[in-house]
C-alpha cells in the first residue's frame, strides 16, 4: 500500500526537572492545543488518536485514561494506546493511516519522572525473576555498555565528554531543553559514566500530527514525508547481547530505507553519551551528518516522550527547510534493547 504519510506538526513542553504542580493532563493539554493550532485542526477533525505512556511513572493503573480528558474525546473518538514511547504510538498511527481508515492522526506521549526515583523505577523493566530482584539501575547498565565500548576501542572518556558538550551546546538554541549550554561534566555516577554522560531526569510531553497525501499538503507548507519506519527488538538478557553493537537498529534502518541515500540530519534517542557511539556505528552515520541538533536526550529526556520528540524534531527541521532527508530514532529497554528508525523527507526545494 503506497499511501504517502507525513508529519505535519509537532509540539512539546518545556521539559523540566519537576512539574509537581501539574497533573499529567495539565502538562499535556497545552501541547495538544499547540499542535492542533499549528494545523488549524480540532479534535473532531482527527481520524485516529494514539498515545504512549507508562503506568509505572505515574504510579497508578490506567494513568492514560485521564489523559483522554486533555484530548476532549467527545463525541467519542477512534483511539488507541501503547505502553511504549510515543514513537511506537506514531508507528501504530502510521499503519492506521496506511490502511486508509483515517487521513489524519494525533499522536502524543508524556512522562512524569519526578514523582519517583527513576533509576529504581526502571529496574522494574528487567526480567522479574532473575534480574529485577538485584535492582540494577539504568545508569549502572548503561555503564556496563560504556565500559564494553571503551574495552573494544570504540570510544574513550574524552570522546564521550565531547558528545555531552556538543549536545548541551546545541541545546542552547532549543528553548524546550532542560539542560541548555555548557554543563560541568561532573563526577562519576557509575564508572565510566559521569554526570555529563547521563540524561537529565525530567517531566515532559510531546505531540505530533500525521496526515496522508493531499491532506498533508493542505495542513503543512513542507510536510515531512515518512519514507519508511520500522522497529526491531533484541534479546532481553544483556548476557546474550553484544552491547557494543545494535543489530536491531541496523535492521530497522535497513527496513526503513535509511541506507538507500545519505541523510543530512539524524535525531538519535541516545540517553547516554556512549549510546550515541553505538547508534552512529549501527546507522553508519558519516561526519557530514548533523547529529542531534536539538541537543537530543542528553538535553531533555522525558521518559516515554523522548523518542517521539526525536521524530518531531527531525520533522520540524524539514518543515523549516533546514533538512531535506532526516533519520529519527527511538529506543526502549535497557541498553538499547528495542529500536525504531524513521526516515523523513521534504519535497525538493
Amino acid at each position, binding site marked *: *500500500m503506497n499511501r504517502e504519510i507525513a508529519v505535519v506538526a509537532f509540539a512539546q513542553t518545556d521539559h523540566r526537572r519537576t512539574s509537581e504542580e501539574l497533573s499529567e493532563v495539565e502538562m499535556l493539554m497545552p501541547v495538544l492545543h499547540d499542535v492542533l493550532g499549528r494545523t488549524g485542526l480540532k479534535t473532531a477533525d482527527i481520524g485516529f488518536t494514539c498515545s504512549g505512556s507508562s503506568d509505572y511513572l505515574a504510579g497508578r493503573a*490506567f494513568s492514560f*485514561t485521564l489523559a483522554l480528558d486533555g484530548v476532549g474525546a467527545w463525541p467519542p*473518538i477512534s*483511539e488507541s494506546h501503547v505502553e511504549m514511547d510515543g514513537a511506537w504510538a506514531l508507528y501504530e498511527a502510521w*499503519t492506521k493511516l*496506511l490502511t486508509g481508515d483515517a487521513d489524519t492522526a494525533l499522536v502524543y506521549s508524556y512522562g512524569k519522572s519526578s514523582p519517583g526515583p527513576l533509576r529504581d523505577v526502571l529496574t522494574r523493566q528487567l526480567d*522479574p525473576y532473575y534480574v529485577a530482584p538485584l535492582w540494577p539501575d539504568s545508569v549502572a547498565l548503561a555503564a556496563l555498555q560504556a565500559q564494553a565500548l571503551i574495552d573494544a576501542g570504540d570510544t574513550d572518556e574524552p570522546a564521550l565528554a565531547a558528545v555531552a558538550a556538543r549536545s548541551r551546546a546545541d541545546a542552547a538554541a532549543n528553548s524546550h531543553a532542560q539542560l541548555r549550554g555548557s554543563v560541568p561534566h561532573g563526577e562519576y555516577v557509575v564508572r565510566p559514566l559521569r554526570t555529563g554522560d547521563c540524561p537529565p531526569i525530567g517531566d515532559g510531553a510531546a505531540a505530533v500530527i500525521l496526515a496522508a497525501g493531499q491532506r498533508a499538503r493542505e495542513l503543512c507548507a513542507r510536510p515531512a514525508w515518512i519514507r519508511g519506519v520500522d522497529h526491531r*527488538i533484541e534479546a532481553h538478557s544483556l548476557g546474550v547481547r553484544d552491547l557494543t553493537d545494535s543489530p536491531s537498529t541496523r535492521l530497522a534502518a535497513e527496513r526503513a530505507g535509511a541506507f538507500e541515500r545519505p541523510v543530512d540530519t539524524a535525531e538519535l534517542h541516545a540517553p547516554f553519551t556512549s549510546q550515541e557511539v553505538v547508534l552512529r556505528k549501527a546507522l553508519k552515520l558519516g561526519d557530514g551528518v548533523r547529529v542531534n541538533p536539538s541537543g537530543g536526550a542528553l538535553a531533555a529526556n522525558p521518559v516515554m516522550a523522548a523518542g517521539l520528540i526525536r521524530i518531531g524534531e527531525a520533522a520540524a527541521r524539514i518543515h523549516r527547510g533546514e533538512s531535506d532527508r532526516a533519520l529519527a530514532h527511538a529506543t526502549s529497554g535497557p541498553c538499547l534493547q528495542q529500536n525504531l528508525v524513521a526516515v523523513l523527507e521534504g519535497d525538493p526545494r
Partner: protein
Amino acid sequence: MSKEPVAVVGIGQTKHVAARRDVSIAGLVREAARRALDDAELTWADIDAVVIGKAPDFFEGVMMPELYLADALGAVGKPMLRVHTAGSVGGSTALVAANLVAARVHGTVLTLAFEKQSESNAMWGLSLPIPFQQPLLAGAGGFFAPHVRAYMRRSGAPDTIGSLVAYKDRRNALKNPYAHLHEHDITLEKVQASPMLWDPIRYSETCPSSDGACAMVLTDRAGAARAPRPPAWMLGGAMRSEPTMFAGKDVVSPQAGKDCAADVYRQAGITDPRREIDGAEIYVPFSWYEPMWLENLGFADEGEGWKLTEAGVTELDGDLPVNMSGGVLSTNPIGASGLIRFAEAALQVRGQAGEHQVEGARKVLGHAYGGGSQFFAMWLVGSEPPDS
C-alpha cells in the same frame, strides 16, 4: 488500493486457572503462542511481528513486561508492539495486529494477550489512592454496581436477570475445556443464594481472577490459502473511546460503544445485527452487563435487552447465543479477556469450538470494553472472506 483481507489461521489458549504456579510469565505466554502456531501449522520463523497486550503492569509488578518476553515469544529481531487500552486491551491488541496485515506492512502476525493475576492482587492494584482523584473503591465491582442499578431502574428489569446470565455462562463454561470455572454442581438457586458483594452484584455474578494467555495468528489472503484449517475472516473492526466521566455521560449505554458497533456493522455490511449475526462473545464481567450490552450493541432496543436474556435467546441453543465459551464470568485473565472474546468468535466461525460450538455459525461478534465503560474494541468475523 483497498485493504488486505485479514484471516485468523491459528488460535491457542492456556487452561485458565486461579494460579499457574508451575510456569513463569514467559512460560505462560509461550504456551498459548505455541498452541496458536501449532493450530496454524506454522513455526516461529513464519511470524513477521508480535503484538502483545495486557492490562496494567501493576497486575504483575513488571514494567513493560514485553521487553522481558521478547525471547519467549520468538520476537528477537522482529517488531514487537505492546498495547494497553485498559479492559478492552485484548480486543485492541488483536485490532492493532490486524491493521499490520490490512496495511500490508506484514504478512503474518502473532498477537497475544495475558494476565497472571496470581502474581499480585488486581482488585487492590486498581484501588491505589491518587490525590485529587475520585477513588475507585474496592476494585471494578464497586465502580460498576451503581451503573447496574441505574440500568435496572431505567429498564424495569426484574432482579433475577443477573442470576440467569451467570447460571447460563457458568453452564456454558462446562463445555469449554479452557474455561477457569467448572462448577459442575451449579444451580440457579446457588447463584441466587450467593453472597452479595456490591449490591446488586452477587459473588456468583462476578468474574473470577485468572491466570491465562490467549494467542492468535493473523495472516493475509496468501497465508489463509496455505492454512491447514478453515480460517476466520475479519469482516469489520473498530475502537472507540470517550472520557471517564463528564456531565451527560450515559454510563449504562455509552455512546462510544454504540459508535464502535455501528462502525463494525457498516464495514461488514450488517443492517440488522439481531438477524444477521449468529452469536456474540461479549465482555460481561458482571452478569448484568449482558442485557446492558445487548442494547448498546443494537441486538435489542433500549430497555429490552433483559427480555432476550429472560426468554433464553442468549442460551447456547437460543437464536442469539451469547458467551458460548462461558465468557468473562467464567474466565478472567484481565488483559487477555478481550482477546479471548475475539478468539472465541473466530473459533465459532471456523467450526472449531467443540462442545460449545453454535451449529452453522457464519458471523460472530467479539467485543471488549474497559476503563470506566469508556474504551471499546470489537470485531466481526465470518466463515467467508469479505466481498465474497
